[in-house]
């Protein structure tokens, strides 16, 4: 799959999420949009998976530790064929398999239940240790949010993964620079700007013994290069430090903490879908020509 195609799939995730959240009347958008391009690249290019056999023991494992962005994961799973795309409209409805936060007992393709922040990296350590124990060569990938690195358990897991030299474990830090409400800037809590949830993350993870690779989380080619380097690192776990923008792709959502989670009006939905279409236009033309 070409980089342009992957880039467009990232926006398809955004479209599905906008419609599902609009239909449900509530949901997380900002942190899904910072992760969308990486989710597209992971599920359509990087992960060794087979949607027809979601329980295959040798499959790569993916944990969305920032479980509040589950709707983004559901969108890419549906696009990849794990379940019908129409089912995205059941998000958050009663009896739905698409819970507000990912529930591995309900939906195929979910490798761990997440949502209580800071907990996702530890099961990733367990899967990576399990792969080693079982002499299996699958990789474990865990996407964590920058806000949740304020949780102590993340650092318990980081310490342990480095001590066991878990080279088959890769964490992806979606460094979108905002969290739900956030810390004050020099201007206090005025406006939508907030102080970064984490500072010097590369330095911190390196100090814990991790291989740190920085990339642009919205540049699919750059992200894929980072994944490739992570796979080729054989002596320690890798952190892909992905610089991203919360609300990426929609002008009135970008870098605005209030879009962490909120309903979207009919007007905003139309405006956002219009922006995505305009953004994809030149790429679609390019793809059609080739």
């Amino acid at each position, binding site marked *: 799959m070409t980089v342009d195609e992957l880039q467009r799939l990232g926006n398809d995730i955004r479209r599905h999420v906008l419609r599902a959240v609009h239909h449900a009347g509530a949901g997380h958008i900002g942190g899904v949009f910072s992760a969308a391009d990486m989710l597209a690249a992971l599920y359509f290019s990087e992960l060794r998976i087979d949607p027809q056999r979601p329980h295959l*023991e040798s499959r790569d*494992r993916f944990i969305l530790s920032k479980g509040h962005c589950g709707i983004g994961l559901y969108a890419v799973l549906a696009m990849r064929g794990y379940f019908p795309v129409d089912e995205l409209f059941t998000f958050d409805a009663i009896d739905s398999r698409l819970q507000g936060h990912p*529930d*591995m*007992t309900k939906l195929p393709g979910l*490798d*761990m*239940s*997440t*949502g*209580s922040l800071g*907990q*996702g*990296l*530890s*099961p*990733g*350590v*367990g*899967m*990576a*240790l*399990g*792969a080693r*124990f*079982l002499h*299996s060569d699958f990789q*474990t990938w865990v996407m964590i949010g920058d806000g949740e690195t304020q949780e*102590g*358990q993340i650092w*318990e*897991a980081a*310490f*342990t993964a480095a*001590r066991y030299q878990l080279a088959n474990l890769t964490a992806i830090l979606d460094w979108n620079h905002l969290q739900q409400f956030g810390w004050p800037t020099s201007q206090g809590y005025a406006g939508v700007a907030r102080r970064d949830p984490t500072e010097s993350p590369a330095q911190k993870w390196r100090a814990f013994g991790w291989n740190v690779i920085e990339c642009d989380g919205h540049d699919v080619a750059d992200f894929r290069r980072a994944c490739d380097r992570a796979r080729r690192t054989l002596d320690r776990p890798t952190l892909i430090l992905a610089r991203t923008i919360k609300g990426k792709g929609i002008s009135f959502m970008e870098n605005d903490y209030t879009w962490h989670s909120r309903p979207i009006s009919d007007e905003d939905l139309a405006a956002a879908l219009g922006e995505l279409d305009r953004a994809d236009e030149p790429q679609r033309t390019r793809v059609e020509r080739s």
Partner: protein
Amino acid sequence: MLAQRDSFGETIVDLCDLDPRVVLLDGDLANSTKSDKLASARPDRFFMMGIAEQNLVGVAAGMASVGLKPWVASFAAFIATRDLDQIRVVVAQPKLNVRFAAHYSGILTGYTGRTHQVVNDIAIMRSLPNMVVVAPCDAVEARAAMFALNDYEGPVYLRLTRDPAGVVTAADHRFELGHALLLREGSDIGLISTGGQTLRVLDAAETLERDNISAMVLHVPTIKPLDVDAVVAAAAATRCILTCEEHSVFGGLGGAVAEVLCERQPTRMQRLGLRDVDGESGPNDALIEKYGLSSAHVVKAAKELWSSL
């Protein structure tokens, strides 16, 4: 006299020999929980996870999700309270095959004081959907329970005690999950107990017999799922019920029995246990005496209940 933790250490090695998917995760307490036996015998099955109990639970969940059968060995106080959110979200809710070996349960914890004692772990664990709660009465039953639980699919909280104590379970005992054991027939008062407290209750029953009160002893090693029929039958066959446990009277065995009886077989009953207090440091005899758990306390509570009828 045998200690449940010694039995645990021997049995975990045997389970690893029996089942290639059994592993143990240690929270840097292997010489307390006797998991050090496994560290020596089968180092490939022993995973030191450091002093980081939240991560310990998450790692176990990840291992279980790829098909292993991990035991988490730590102190009951840390597992039941410090790790509650981790257990709730990544073990109990997804029904993963993680077994918690909750050592040093209750208040007989070897001079630790109340930071390392937990008096409400049964109440906490039993309230979690999908969680099974087991409290063996002695070292032999603990071993039998571990073998039985190895064949169970889902999360289990196994409540174990620290110090050597008497053994009442026959060596060839087969533990059946969810089954209570009638250890002594009786018709006046039904004594229902769990964990190490059962030994003190059996002593009390003999004393009561000498004083012409016929006491039944129903030992409940599986607190959840509770053997409801056995509890109802005990209430039907006697005139009153006294529950006994080294745990708070809130929400533990006494709470579970009261819930069942008030719905199925309303019965005059009394709960013996810690009455909304924590423990403290001290020798076991002194702790048992001060916190009202001795055989003499059981006898006294039984007689008061009997005479109030």
